[in-house]
């Protein structure tokens, strides 16, 4: 049959070089060298392409995603706008993934969760971004007509997303307000899980590992009723804490005002 041979993509040399650095040269021992080479690039010419390659973390080895995050951190000293763009782009990818729920994108979506976690570890995003993302994963598209397409009952992919992100950076949420935030999230996560019903064994094992790692003493609720009751308790507790906080502030305010008047009066 008459058919033209498949034309392979010809990339400009600069793009080929960037790909060589990121997809074949990069490893633990070469990262300093790769960073230096990247800094030497003509940035105005290739920043957009570099961003595109950084988003292809799923092309490289899963265990090397932290190297790309490390490069982002290294470059942020000289090209802060690039580091900002990387973070914005990963968050957008995660969002688009939720909007499309395309089976073919799963490997890439998992790599992006890992990348976001590593960007947190390299201090390029703060914990509020991580928690906002975690809650977004639990609720996106729910209570809309699209729920059955975006997160069908038998689909456990979002559990994998949460597990991946928390495996990567959850161990840092072990004190102070981020500890409380993770405790709270994990109860919401448990409700999400219980709504899925019976889980495939591999997912259940991943979850057991995650809880053992992050919160070995946390209760795993057995039913929706139990977890709902726990959430009601939690909300009540948070409400009381907030009221106390507000009262304390009011109290300290009301102390200040009379003291000022008294001192004013004593002058008189």
């Amino acid at each position: 049959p008459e058919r033209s041979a498949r034309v392979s993509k010809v990339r400009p040399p600069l793009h080929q070089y960037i790909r060589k650095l990121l997809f074949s040269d990069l490893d633990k021992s070469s990262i300093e060298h790769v960073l230096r080479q990247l800094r030497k690039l003509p940035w105005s010419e290739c920043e957009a392409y570099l961003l595109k390659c950084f988003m292809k973390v799923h092309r490289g080895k899963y265990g090397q995603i932290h190297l790309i995050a490390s490069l982002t951190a290294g470059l942020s000293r000289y090209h802060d706008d690039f580091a900002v763009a990387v973070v914005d782009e990963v968050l957008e990818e995660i969002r688009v993934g939720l909007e499309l729920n395309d089976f073919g994108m799963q490997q890439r979506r998992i790599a992006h969760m890992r990348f976001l976690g590593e960007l947190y570890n390299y201090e390029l995003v703060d914990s509020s971004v991580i928690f906002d993302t975690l809650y977004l994963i639990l609720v996106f598209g729910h209570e809309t007509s699209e729920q059955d397409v975006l997160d069908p009952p038998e689909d456990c992919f979002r559990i994998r997303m949460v597990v991946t992100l928390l495996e990567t950076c959850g161990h840092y949420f072990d004190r102070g307000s981020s500890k409380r935030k993770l405790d709270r999230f994990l109860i919401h996560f448990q409700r999400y899980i219980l709504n899925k019903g019976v889980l495939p064994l591999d997912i259940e094992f991943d979850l057991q590992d995650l809880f053992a790692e992050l919160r070995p003493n946390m209760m795993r609720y057995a039913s929706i009723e139990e977890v709902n009751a726990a959430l009601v308790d939690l909300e009540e507790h948070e409400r009381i804490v907030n009221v106390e906080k507000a009262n304390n502030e009011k109290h300290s305010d009301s102390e200040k005002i009379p003291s000022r008047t008294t001192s004013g009066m004593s002058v008189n």
Partner: protein
Amino acid sequence: MKNRRTKVVVRHLPPTLSQSTLLEQVDSRFAGRYNWFTFRPGKTSLRHQSYSRAYIDFRNTEDVIEFAEFFDGHVFVNEKGTQFKTIVEYAPSQRVPKHWSKKDAR
């Protein structure tokens, strides 16, 4: 805490929209009211289509509200008559490049 956010993302813009066209529309009402603007062009190919996107960091939180009232749900129509309904949201990461980003001496 939440109402101090000033960076927004404008999503679901037509893939073929150009930065200058969007900037013209933004500047017609919001010129001088933002510190930082960046545009990510979308793409149309046979297999994939991705929307264009923009990030804007406003000077004041009130400007964010006014911008959202103006642009959220705004419908762009491309040459073929396809409609694109814009979404305006707070950007999930509020980080903005530092202006004093030093020049790389390599």
